């Protein structure tokens, strides 16, 4: 489990339930590393402002994270973290490596407006 203030996904069942039962979901799958920490920070910061979006993290090295590591949208990803945006259960956007607050807000505003 990651030591962030975000809600954690800790099993495939958790993941399925969250993605199926929430309209807008952002999940950051990473480690406690320098490219991942700023993304978690931004998500924690945006949680209040984007109350129509559900924010989660997932530990990249956990076996259950295979659900995102092997996701078709991550097929070419070679940089942590893997960040996914799900709308009504479907992955509508995914990014690899660090993203700025502006880049994240731009995706949230377009995909979850």
């Amino acid at each position: 489990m990651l030591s962030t203030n975000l809600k954690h996904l800790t099993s495939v069942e958790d993941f399925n339930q969250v993605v199926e039962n929430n309209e807008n979901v952002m999940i950051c799958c990473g480690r406690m590393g320098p490219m991942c920490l700023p993304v978690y920070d931004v998500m924690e910061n945006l949680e209040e402002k984007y109350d129509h979006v559900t924010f989660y993290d997932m530990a990249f090295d956990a076996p259950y994270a295979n659900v995102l590591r092997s996701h078709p949208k991550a097929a070419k990803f070679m940089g942590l973290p893997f960040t996914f945006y799900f709308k009504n259960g479907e992955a509508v956007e995914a990014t690899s490596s660090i993203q700025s607050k502006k880049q994240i807000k731009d995706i949230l505003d377009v995909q979850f407006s």
Partner: protein
Amino acid sequence: MTKNNITETYDVIILGGGPAGLTAGIYLGRAKVKTLIINEGSIGGQMVLTHAIANFPGVDIDISGRDLSLKMKAQAKAFGCDFESNVEVTGIDLSGELKQVEIDGDEVFAAKSIIIASGGTPRPLGVNGESQFKGQGISYCATCDGDFFTDKEILVVGGGNSALEEAVSLTQYARKVTVIHQFDHFQATEHAIKLAQNNAKISFIMESEIQHIIGDQTLKGVEIMHMKTKARSQVFADGIFIFIGYIANTDSLPDSIILNARNEIITDENMATNIDGVFAAGDVREKQFRQITTAVSDGTIAALSAIDYLQK
């Protein structure tokens, strides 16, 4: 930008939560100066990018940049500094006696003195294909992404300590590492150069510059040009790690503050800028050596200078 709806007024506002800003916060907090640290990214700045910090006095030689950052933050907080973290600075007004900083477009903080310690961000190559393959073959962090390149061939761009140390670190994963550098010599320490040169997995292409990234669906390599002969050639690789220095974060500053040609803030030896009550510390200012220890030194001097300014 001057606004009347000020959220809170401080003695000093520090822009930036890296080693320079946090050290300034520690000194100001300990001197009972009401201080706010405003930080746009993760606390620690570029320091969090370092896997192990071996040359910071008095700490374990394998302390991570993240752990050192958290210790510095805890120290500043214990001395009474307030923090506004992970916010966007949307306006800075340094014109009046009371300087103003707007965050996220809706809150305005004011202070008699400002310390700019906003640091730098990794310098991109600035060639075609770089943004397309970021996170899909192009990386700026060996400790984060090295294991994606296990048994693959990678390029490391740069010739300073970071480039050579990370090249050595990447040989844990990669089959072959090629360092591409634009000069005929390195800017790293002798120790770092020897470690890289003695590593059988590392080879070097000197006096060459990347012209563009080659790839369609996936990254395939780069086209390089020899700086003297202008001859072009292609180098194939599965990934590229870029360590070519940093750009000072001065974009959001008003034009009234004097910068050098590289957009770094010009200060005197007391960290004072050309504006009364405005100081700069760390990688954002013009200086030769950029280390955590020099940032800490800058932060100390800036804080003491700000205290002097407040007492005038």
